[in-house]
């Protein structure tokens, strides 16, 4: 009997169908897979939702996939990293009037941070996740993060903050599959998770009530003081329930009767005011990011043309970028874009290639 040296891979498994199929396909292709599920919570007190990943049931689901595919599975302790790197920034952002995007932080610090560190532990050469994205070597020998074949499932927006250096070691087996194909693979491999419901919203706030989660579950008190709704001219037009409850571009749940539809245009945390205005007032000419994470060997040239996405569901807008201080960029849209929400990620593309991203620091209106 000859024992070929098999490539050892660490597979992140949330318990959902995507990461299960990703790990299973790697195992089927002959990789020596070790599955891991990150424990982000103390589960004793968390309500169980079938849509939430990383719950006790989800851990069991991941284990059953590992058993089925005959590879080992471990639960890794990541509560501390999750709390300090994802949850706290999430709270800080809401409390300061921004709209956080914790998935980017979770990918950056947990899946492509903490787990990358653990690869060395088991001598793994590859990190496998169930993200819909592609990694490919370019003619110039650089590594590129590319959008998934399934455009509706593409998750590069959530991956733009991961370190460029990990790209050569990352595998996304689902990047070339559609969701239907993934479910068919799960069914073919007889993985019991094949018909699990799609996870929605944030995994740790399955009901989508972020403000309620922050205040009731985490005891957040910042951003809960009532204050003034003001119009574009600064006149008080009502009372808001605390800036925590609002996000730029929001229309529903404002509780203000007006002749025209009102949207949240701006949130001023120090002044504790929320500015409302008509839809047209949401339009921004551009934005300034925080320090960019480039998924390139070197930042693009000043004045480069890009496609910028400013929220998960955003199709992207043609824009020009200019370097700003401390690694930030200024993004100027060709056509004004509505609802640029500070805190959300701005992710830049050149065609299919994801160039990198950063949280939006501020919008530009002029």
């Amino acid at each position: 009997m000859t024992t070929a040296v098999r490539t050892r891979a660490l597979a992140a498994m949330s318990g959902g169908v995507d990461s299960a199929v990703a790990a299973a396909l790697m195992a089927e292709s002959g990789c020596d897979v070790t599955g891991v599920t990150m424990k982000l919570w103390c589960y004793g007190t968390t309500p169980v939702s079938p849509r939430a990943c990383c719950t006790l049931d989800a851990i069991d689901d991941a284990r059953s996939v590992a058993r089925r595919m005959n590879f080992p599975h471990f639960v890794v302790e990541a509560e501390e990293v999750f709390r300090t790197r994802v949850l706290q920034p999430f709270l800080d952002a809401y409390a300061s009037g921004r709209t956080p995007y914790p998935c980017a932080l979770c990918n950056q610090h947990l899946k492509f941070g903490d787990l990358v560190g653990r690869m060395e532990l088991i001598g793994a050469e590859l990190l496998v996740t169930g993200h819909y994205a592609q990694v490919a070597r370019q003619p110039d020998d650089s590594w590129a993060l590319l959008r998934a074949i399934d455009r509706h499932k593409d998750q590069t927006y959530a991956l733009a903050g991961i370190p460029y250096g990990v790209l050569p070691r990352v595998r996304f087996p689902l990047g070339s599959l559609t969701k239907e194909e993934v479910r068919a693979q799960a069914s073919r491999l007889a993985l019991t998770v094949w018909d699990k419901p799609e996870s929605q919203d944030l995994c740790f706030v399955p009901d989508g009530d972020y403000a309620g989660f922050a205040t009731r579950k985490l005891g957040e008190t910042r951003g809960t003081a009532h204050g003034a709704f003001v119009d574009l001219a600064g006149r008080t037009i009502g009372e808001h329930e605390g800036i925590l409850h609002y996000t730029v571009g929001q229309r529903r749940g404002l509780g203000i009767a007006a002749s025209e539809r009102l949207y949240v245009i701006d949130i001023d945390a120090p002044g504790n005011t929320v500015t409302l205005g008509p839809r047209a007032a949401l339009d921004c000419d551009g934005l300034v990011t925080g320090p960019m994470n480039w998924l390139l060997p070197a930042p693009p040239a000043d004045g480069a043309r890009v496609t910028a996405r400013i929220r998960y569901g955003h199709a992207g807008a043609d824009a020009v970028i200019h370097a700003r201080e401390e690694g930030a960029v200024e993004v100027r849209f060709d056509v004004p874009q509505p609802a640029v929400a500070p805190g959300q990620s701005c992710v830049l593309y050149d065609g299919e290639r994801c160039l990198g991203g950063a949280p939006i620091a501020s919008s530009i209106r002029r």
Partner: protein
Amino acid sequence: MIYLDHNASTPVRPEVAEAMREALAGSGANPSSSHREGQHERARIEQARERVAALVHAHPDQVVFTSGGTEGDHLALMGAAWGLRERGKTVAISSIEHHAVHGAAAWLKDLGFTIAHLPVRPDGMTDPSIINDLPRDTSLVSLMLANNETGVLQPVAAVAARAHARGMRVHCDAVQCAGKMPIDTDALDVDYLVISAHKIGGPKGVGAVIVRTGAPLTPLLRGSGHERGLRGGTENLPGIVGFGRAAELALRDLASERTRLLALRERFENGLRAIAPDAVIHGTSAPRLPNTVNVSIPGARSDHMLMALDAEGVAVSAGAACASGGVEPSPVLAAMGVPRELAVCALRFSSGRTTTEREIDDALAAIGRAVPKARALAPA
């Protein structure tokens, strides 16, 4: 694979498997049946009962077969506490007991009993004088013979003497000690002693409670008089036969295995100290099982070490696993006052009949490679 998790479960001995195969190939009659086929099966069970009794120096009539240690602890604690409820409604358990005992105590609490927890000293041992401080209505005291995580032996005889002097009954979970150290139920003078087959080279799913003659015990499972009316249900014949054979072999090999394992432990601990001079081996100032080493290597978290060692082909245990399978600091180490940052680095290595000197050396080499990798990751 180098298997150093024998405290979790140890391989079934080939002779045991053979005895079980024979039992399974038997007539298939019910041991309770009156015909001679039934009597023949009954004889197998009674032979096993004698062998199990001999392992712990008890009388065969005192042996009640159960489905394992957890059932044994539940039967002894709940059955005794219920039987003694007129005597008092406080049950004292040590804070380092196995989950099975904590589970039975939780049931008793739900039934209206008060549970008192006996502390342990930093060396991992229970102080027998604590018995004098227990409330007057304490009916039962539960103390394990050897702790499953640290291997520290408990002063059961001294606790039993004090408890009996105050009119309290004594339960002893001897699951982890059986087959590793001589056990004399008479000398220990306990009323209920629990053992399990799969820790001594027998099959999983069978165990026994040794019940002192005359000690009150209300059965949990009531059936048609099996096990002297103390545990209803048709006997697990192949399991009991395997248990009996394993007990017989464990008794035969006890002295030589103990010496051999002690030498391996010495070799292993010296090797650990060479790899990490700051390693803390828990419970070393108390008498311990010859096969158990619970060590914290500062900065090398258990979950990291567990994965790294698994990848190296070394199977160990990281203290007590919590419900999700993640690593939580062990309550046993916490009870001993081990600081959290050290407790989250605890690993339990437990050797057994199949462990060789070569395996110990190979495991040490793997640990030597794993420690710097684990230390390179985020601290606890």
